[in-house]
């Protein structure tokens, strides 16, 4: 067994809205290994985004513990969380969130400028198959291309984990598959632990493990003995 990237014990997140307490995350125990591709599936409000946010250092649990390798994320201050995100986490958003005034290349460079041991922006873009389009602005790129730029931007700093929240949510199936392809390629070549939230059940086939969420708990874990290639997917 390889070393764990994330170790969660009794992880709980409770939002109080008015007089009602909502258990977004309820006593979750979880380990995620290095190089693993994990897909989180489940209906809206089942807790998968809350977990992703806590793992990404954007939110703190109400109780329980979460370790990133040896680092206890539970009690980190804002400043330390920022450093954690900066050094170890790559994010891919549903809506790409690129800086419109920067070209693809420059969007990647924006991150590599502040990273410790980044790859060259051109290499990161080549990894997602965009070396030909790197001097285009977001407005000149298709949705799928924009998302691949976002992936290049996320992985250029060689993060330990790549957190993707609905990365194909805004895309048609053909472009969606190209994006998944890019994510898997990164995982293969760099060994980046990749966690993908999706509503799209087909995508579970590319994962090592699939976590099914319901009511703030992991209701079921499915281990895929063989991962499918993105090209084999349809939806």
């Amino acid at each position, binding site marked *: 067994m390889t070393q764990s990237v994330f170790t969660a014990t009794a992880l709980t997140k409770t939002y109080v809205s008015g007089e009602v307490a909502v258990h977004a995350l309820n006593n979750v125990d979880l380990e995620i290994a290095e190089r693993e591709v994990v897909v989180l599936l489940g209906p809206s409000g089942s807790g998968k*985004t809350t977990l992703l*946010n806590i793992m*990404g250092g*954007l*939110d703190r649990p109400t109780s329980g513990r979460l370790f990133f390798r040896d680092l206890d994320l539970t009690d980190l201050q804002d*400043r330390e969380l*920022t*450093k954690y*995100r*900066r*050094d170890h*986490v790559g*994010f891919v*958003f*549903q*809506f790409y*969130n*690129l*800086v*419109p*005034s*920067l*070209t693809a*290349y*420059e*969007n990647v*460079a*924006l*991150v590599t*400028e*502040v990273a410790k041991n980044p790859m060259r*922006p051109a290499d990161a873009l080549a990894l997602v198959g965009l070396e030909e389009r790197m*001097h285009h*602005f*977001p*407005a*000149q790129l298709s949705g799928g291309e924009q998302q691949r730029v976002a992936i290049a*931007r*996320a992985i250029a700093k060689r993060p330990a984990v790549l957190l993707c*929240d609905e990365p194909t949510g805004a895309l048609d199936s053909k472009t969606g598959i190209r994006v998944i392809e890019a994510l898997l390629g990164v995982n293969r070549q760099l060994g980046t632990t990749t966690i993908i939230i999706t509503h799209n059940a087909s995508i579970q086939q590319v994962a090592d493990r699939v976590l099914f969420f319901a009511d703030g708990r992991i209701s079921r874990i499915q281990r895929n003995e063989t991962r499918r290639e993105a090209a084999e997917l349809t939806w």
Partner: protein
Amino acid sequence: MWAQVLAIALVVGGGVATLVLAVGSHRSLEETRIAYYERYGFGDVFAQVKRAPKALADRIVDIPGVAAVDARIAKLALLDIPGFSEPASGQFVSLPDNGEAHLNRLYIRSGRLPESGRTEEVVVNEPFARAHGFSEGARFSAILNGKKRELVIVGTALSPEFVYTVGPGDLMPDDRRFAVVWMSEKALAGVYDLDGAFSAVSVKLQPGASEREVISRLDALLDPYGGQAAHGRKDQTSHAWLDHELDMLNNMSRTLPPIFLLVSAFLVNLTLSRLVALEREQIGLLKALGYTDGSIVLHYFKFVALIVAAGIVLGSIVGTWLGLRITALFGDFFHFPFLVFAKAPDLYVIAGALSAAAAAIGALRALREVVTLPPAVAMQPPAPPVYRRLLPASIQLDQIVSQPTLMMVRNIARHPVRATFTALGMALATAILVVSLFTRDTMEQLIDVTYFLADRQDATIGFVEKRIGNVVEQVHRLPGVLAAEPFREVPVRIRHGNVERRITISGRPADADLRRIIDVDLRPVVLPETGLAISGMLGHILGVAAGDTVELDLLEGARRTVTMPIVATVEDYFGIRGMMDMDALRQLMREAPVVNSVNLSLDENRKEDFYAAVKSMPTVAGVALQRVSLANFRKTVALLITTMASIYTGLAAVIAFGVVYNNARISLSERARELASLRVLGFTRGEVLRILLLELAILTLIAQPPGWLMGYGLAWVMKTNLAGELMRVRLVVEHSTYVLATSVVVLAAVASAAVIRRRIDNLDLVAVLKTRD
């Protein structure tokens, strides 16, 4: 959102406040003056005469256009005030023994009028009494017609004729050293052997009468009795100064508030248009729910109206309050017996309408774009804005320029109009600060030239009548006198073409060292043996320069009209005057060497001895003291100007803060998602703040030089508007003023950055992952 609404309201309020305070206080003072003049019968034409029979007054009334005449005795005399070592002078004026004066009536503040024929009873002007803590029963002495007499105060009064009281030879009012003393006519006539005669006359004109015509007929009547040329209100000291001060206020109110109001209107326009653009989704939603375009526009207009109304109310309250304070300050300075506070509903309407229109146009500009979109499109986020490379792709700048810098440069390049307007807003903020602050520098320069370069004497002794030349030696022998220079002053009318002015020509010795003439390059000038030097301003008024010839009517001695070449124009800031070599002037007047005054350099340690000695000289009308004059100048004029400047500076700072804050705040709204993504990607708050504010910082810095330039231009306009025959300035804007103006803008920028920082801290990072806007 409230903070931003407040910031916009502040900018609107700043503009409104300036207009209301400046125009309001000017109107109040103007109306106060009109009411004062009218109720107390201030004359229109004034003349001095040596001795004219009272019967002549009836012939003056008969001059066509004359409504009323007041003939009386007016004499200058030296005062000796117990416990006050410096010499003071008094303007003695007679009061009719039966009934009230026809013109220039007194406003009795306390006590009563002197009894007929009582030589010792006097009424004094209230400021003088107040300066010395005198009340009824207080005593002081005066040398009247060569004899020292003790006087007792029976009342205090104010007069429209002496709103602004300046002693002989002095530039500035000094209530301690100059008094207006009213005495029974019978008593004063007795003292000066003027029974049945008068020495001064003032005339009230009928409406529509020609002042010029009346003056020339009056001159003809008075001439045989030693009359000096009559003059209108324009040459009456008190009126002229009051006019000048009100003019100055008026000019300030015409120059600064429109700038403030325009800047604020411009900013409100800019801010609201961006603010409404941010509401795109809500507008789409409203349309989807079935609201008509008209009702949506109306809704946003109401929102805009609310902000503007808040600004107008805020500005009106502050402006009215400041206006009342300034009116009271000036009213006190001029010793008005009462104040008329002008109500100015039109001002609120003008200020309000302009601000509201600017805001509405700004909102409409943004609404037009959004409202024309179909609801489905409006509810979706706008397509990513198209940016362009500024350089070919082959040129890679990332080794040299950081990505945040690139973002900033491209943002500016993508919104050139907005960037220009933003920079313009900053530049205007700097400019209004410069124009609010420059008066300080200009006043210091005026003081430098007037008191330290030109008129370097310590004291000037003025005589009741002109004296023969050996008086200089007498004065020189007084204790503490180190040097003495004679001064001869002759009243003339100077004319070139159709333009004429009444001025005084001063004759000064060729080797004069105390009172010097300074040319426009600020170098001392030695007068040539012939010819006339004149104030630069007078040259400007007459349209003459060195080498031209003017006509002079000599108004003293053998009245002749002569032509005279102009040999130089002179840098001076007070009054308009002519200067000649003393011998040349003597030859022109065809007289023996005589002097009107002597300029002195004093031994600081023997000042008191000098004061004591000069107080007992019966021929002296007054002693002007430069040090005291300078102190008074700083205390009065400088104080008023500084007060105004401080108020304007405060308002300018508010506007500067509003500009920067609104800009930063809206940029933050527009780029919230982008900035939050950066935070998620691991950028620190500081880095994100830097990215947000870099653009504003650069625009602020870029705006400074144009701001200085505009500020200098506006200062020049103001200086030019303020330049008058009585006083003017040379435009001086020190580097420190530019630095100060920029510092205030930068400080405002930093303050708003600090406020914005708290917003960055609260950026919702989680929301960014999910939503597009």
